[in-house]
């Protein structure tokens, strides 16, 4: 049973990557969009561009994972092809995990491209590679689970895009990408602590520039928590939708 689940999970992710993710418009959107935002901010507020790197990486990961993940399930449900997966010998959580894995792999791939560019321009310095890898991995999982929840919560593709943007854009401005969370008004700081992007940016900042290991550990824990909760919610909603 577990073997069937793992096999299906893997092939569902591979199929999604081939069929939906690795298409030129997705790749260019995934890489260019965060660059454009950060560049616009840097031009408006010139300073040390290095401080924007964690935000740039987190933003790339957020948009890379959720751009397709947020629509892929509702898209397949509309076309009827999700039914093929429901008929296969795979349990629903494994099916959903396959969808998540596709989003994660794509998000991590475009983020690695951005990371290579950034390191080539600014140098590696004192990067904590292990923490960097863990932060990227857990953030990708959390963002992908968020995308999956959006995708199962709606009935139409356009609703998924609207809802995803409704969540992503406020998160982008509150999550410490452009402005440190500590400089936000107290109420917004509380809101920021409810967003996975905040923890991703914070963990990436520690990984790239150093900082409190305890803080980074808490960030990783928070990202793991977001992943678990969002995945559980998505699985529940999907089960209700297909019942």
């Amino acid at each position, binding site marked *: 049973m577990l073997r*069937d689940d793992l096999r299906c999970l893997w092939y569902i992710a591979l199929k999604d990557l081939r069929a*939906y993710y690795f298409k030129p418009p997705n790749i260019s959107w995934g890489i260019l969009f965060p660059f454009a935002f950060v560049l616009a901010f840097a031009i408006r507020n010139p300073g040390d561009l290095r401080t924007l790197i964690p935000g740039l990486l987190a933003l790339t990961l957020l948009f890379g994972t959720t751009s397709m993940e947020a629509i892929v399930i509702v898209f397949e449900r509309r076309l009827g*092809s999700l039914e093929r997966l429901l*008929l296969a*010998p795979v349990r629903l959580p494994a099916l959903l995990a396959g969808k998540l894995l596709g989003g994660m792999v794509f998000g991590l791939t475009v983020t690695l491209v951005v990371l290579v560019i950034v390191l080539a321009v600014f140098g590696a310095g004192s990067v904590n590679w292990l923490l960097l890898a863990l932060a990227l991995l857990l953030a990708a999982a959390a963002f992908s689970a968020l995308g999956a929840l959006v995708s199962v919560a709606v009935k139409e593709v356009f609703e998924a895009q609207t809802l995803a943007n409704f969540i992503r854009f406020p998160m982008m401005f509150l999550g410490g990408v452009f402005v440190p969370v500590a400089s936000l008004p107290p109420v917004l700081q509380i809101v920021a602590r409810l967003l996975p992007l905040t923890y991703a940016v914070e963990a990436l900042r520690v990984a790239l520039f150093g900082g409190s290991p305890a803080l980074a550990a808490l960030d990783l824990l928070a990202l793991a928590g977001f992943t678990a909760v969002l995945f559980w919610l998505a699985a529940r909603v999907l089960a209700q939708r297909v*019942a």
Partner: protein
Amino acid sequence: MSDVIQVAGLTKTYATDKGRPPLVAVAGIDFVVREGEVFGFLGPNGAGKTTTIRMLTGLARPTSGGARVMGLDLAADLPRIKKQIGVVPEASNLYDELTALDNLVFAMQLYGVPRVERRPRAEALLARFRLGEKRDAPFAKLSRGMKRVLTIAAGLAHRPPLLFLDEPTTGLDVMSARNLRGMIAALRDEGVTIFLTTHYLEEAERLCDRIAVIVKGRIVALDTVAGLKAAAPGRTAVEVTYAGADGDVATRRIETDDVATAVQAALAEAGDRRVLAVNTVRPTLEDVFVGLTGLGAEAMLAEKGGKGGGNAAG
């Protein structure tokens, strides 16, 4: 011959608006499907055909009752059942972005077909279903008939002993539908048990060993085609067509339980006029269906809103 499907009291109800009674889609049906047969499930739109398939394949949970599929309990052994059944839904639902070959390979990946067997088996399926030239064409670029055939091929990719076919020829042109019927017959000859829903009466008559007629969620008849016809309202008729004295053509119809006597009587009645044809007209499956449902073949087609494979001649 063992039973591959045993259904007992299978029921599905859907909640409706507050204050209204629940909608009963399937109302406690019982039947068995025997190994190696084509079992037809016939009924008008909304009769409960697709809901029954959805329950038997794990896509919908029965409200009450149950079933055993391939000897396994539907409620307890669904994952093991899924490995042994192929399902071809009414809509051709493969992946537009994948090629014909890749769609089949993906179907095999899901069911754990060993890696070395996937491509040769996919190539063989494409050849068998006359899609070899389209192996590298994306599903989206195939004609409707080809999509339908490829969807059936995907349902067979893991070589299931039991295949569910939901309205397989709906929307197909006459030739595609005819080819598909030939393929279904060939599968039966190979020993695949087929659970077939269709609203084409001639198709059911041509392909099915036994037919269940479902109306408003209840099975109102279940028998072989011959058995259903034998129980049909109306009698066998003998029609004798002969040339009249002034060159015109006349037909005499005699309804009877004794065909031989009726033919003799009709011939005697013709006297010295030249007999052009003698036909025995037996009740058709349509007569049976009309008697059971109040709907005829035309009404069935109109309900479905399509013609396509409706002409089962050939």
